[in-house]
């Protein structure tokens, strides 16, 4: 009996020949990532357990990317950045990306990819549920709390229960009106927000390997929205090209065995799929866009780790070019690199940034922004009973800042089309 990709990576990091789903094992961690919300409490626990002057297990494997509450006047949020800064200085951390400097990156999951920390075959933990994003690079990655992160910080090890793997195979050619966001919302709608609990979501099939790394990251990013422990895609030349352009660090690609056993298998023909939304108030509340067309909107939001990458903005800009939005539309690049590229990449001679500004969008700075509400002065935060359509990944009550608001999740194409009309709009109506 063979092993799945996830099982093989975990076995290697536990120093074992093989593992089976349900095994409780201790694994060696290659990268630990934390940010401004969970970093300071993790550091507090680390000091409590290992001592005020204890050393982190490996200063080259700890990555700190402040990204959540950056452009706010909230004094506690600002204090948290200072705590990270002091810790990074105390431990001489090379991979601290300080706010207010040219090193500042923005959303951690996108920055991990850009800075070359996502390496095939690795084990990566982070204090953020969307750490599963990194699995797009053929590595095991998952989110943990402060306590587990502090244990890793001190020892480089953590216990893991080996998950069963669910396999999602996408075949066929992706139509121009669909994006990875439509595919993953379809999966979550099919299995539910707890359909993947304790399990791996592995994505496979020709349509997945046709996707860019940015789009693959949208798939793995939302594994957690189905309850999954990790999302993963086996690496290919697209992966290697991306990684090699970002880092010289060594890595060893791992592949699942041909006779691996899966918990279940789902097959989709992407050529037959349609643009979808997740209706309020759950990511699994799926509907074809056609069912909600005409829903009046107060706000549109394009941003976050799942919907604020360069290609997300390229897609939205294709629709908005030369036109004007009819409803307040907020554009928040995930990272400073995305922000810079938006001012370089052009469509018919006009930069993406200029297309959005000319369309009347409000432009934000690279960060998590209003995806998770955040402090009261957060750019684009939902207020009152606003109806919002967003490229983000969660729409539970209050997620974007107001528990009276109603949030629809959709692809950047669908959000841009909706921004044009002020009501939810099928991107097929406006794509030329």
């Amino acid at each position, binding site marked *: 009996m063979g092993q799945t990709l996830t099982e093989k990576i975990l076995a290697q990091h536990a120093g074992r020949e093989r593992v089976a789903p349900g095994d*409780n094992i*201790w694994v060696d961690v290659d990268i630990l990532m934390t940010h401004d*919300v*969970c970093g*300071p*409490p993790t550091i*507090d626990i680390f000091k409590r*357990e*290992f*001592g005020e002057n*204890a050393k982190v297990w490996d200063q080259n494997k700890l990555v700190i990317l402040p990204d*959540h*509450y950056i452009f706010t006047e*909230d004094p*506690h*949020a600002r204090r*948290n950045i200072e705590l990270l800064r002091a810790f990074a200085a105390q431990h001489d951390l090379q991979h601290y990306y300080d706010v207010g400097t040219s090193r500042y990156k923005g959303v951690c999951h996108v920055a991990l990819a850009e800075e070359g920390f996502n390496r095939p075959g690795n084990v990566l933990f*982070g*204090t*953020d*549920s969307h*750490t599963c994003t990194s699995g797009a690079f053929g590595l095991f990655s998952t*989110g*943990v*709390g*402060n*306590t*587990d992160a502090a*244990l890793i910080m*001190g*020892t480089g*090890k953590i*216990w893991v*229960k080996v998950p069963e793997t669910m396999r999602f195979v996408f075949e066929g050619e992706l139509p121009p009106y669909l994006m990875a966001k439509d595919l993953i919302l379809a999966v979550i709608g099919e299995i539910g*927000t*707890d359909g993947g*609990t*304790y399990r791996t979501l592995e994505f496979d099939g020709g349509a997945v390997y046709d996707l860019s790394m940015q789009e693959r990251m949208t798939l793995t990013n939302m594994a957690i929205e189905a*309850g999954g*422990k990790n999302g993963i895609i086996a690496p290919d030349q697209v992966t290697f090209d991306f990684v090699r352009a970002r880092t010289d660090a060594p890595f060893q690609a791992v592949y699942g065995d041909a006779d691996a056993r899966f918990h279940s298998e789902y097959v989709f023909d992407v050529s037959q799929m349609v643009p979808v939304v997740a209706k309020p108030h*759950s990511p699994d509340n799926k509907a074809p866009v056609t069912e909600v067309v005409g829903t009046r909107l107060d706000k549109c939001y394009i941003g976050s780790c799942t919907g604020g990458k360069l290609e997300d903005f390229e897609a939205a800009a294709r629709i908005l070019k030369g036109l004007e939005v009819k409803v307040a539309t907020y554009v928040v690049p995930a990272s400073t690199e995305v922000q810079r590229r938006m001012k370089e990449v052009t469509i018919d001679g006009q930069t993406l940034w200029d297309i959005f500004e000319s369309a009347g969008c409000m432009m934000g700075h690279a960060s998590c922004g209003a995806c*998770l*509400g*955040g*402090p*009261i002065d957060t750019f684009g935060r939902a207020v009152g009973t606003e109806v919002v359509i967003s490229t983000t990944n*969660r729409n*539970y*009550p*209050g*997620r974007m*800042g107001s*528990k009276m608001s109603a949030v629809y999740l959709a692809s950047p194409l669908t959000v841009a089309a909706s921004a044009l009309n002020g009501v939810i709009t099928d991107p097929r109506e406006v794509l030329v």
Partner: protein
Amino acid sequence: MIRGKAYVVGDAIDTDQIIPAAHLVYSLTIPEERKMYGRYALSGVPADQQGLPKGGQPFTAEDSFESEYKVIIGGSNFGCGSSREHAPFAIAEAGCEAVVAESYARIFYRNSVDGGFVVPFETRVPLTERIRTGDEVEIDTVRSTLHNHTTGEDFLLNPLGDVADILKAGNVFEYARQKGLIST
């Protein structure tokens, strides 16, 4: 034994409902800040869902830092959403000792256990319509049973299984020390 008033909520209580993101700026160690987590625990639950079946009953009363409830009764997928350990921390900080739900999101469950915040029990049958907010309940943590003193009903809970040793040790650090996995 864990005994006290029950607080009933529905399915898919996510971490933003347990502790809204705007409050995550507070320190979890500085006493005057950490008590804010007790103040705002479960404050993100929509008003009509706060304390079922009636609703409109906040988990922590206005201007208080501690809840009158000792046990949360939830439905499926309790604690879904983010990885914020602030969620089980907030429940514990409010003075609540256990959650009894049909199922849990993985990270919330793990955080509850590894940090030693609250004991996450799983029910064998849905309890959200069998127990009312304010009922006096008692959990036998050894036998994994729940007794409702208000109605006289008894319910079986799932044994804690693999994580019982970590809960018994207090948290994952104590467990790791007992196992010789960390030396300090």
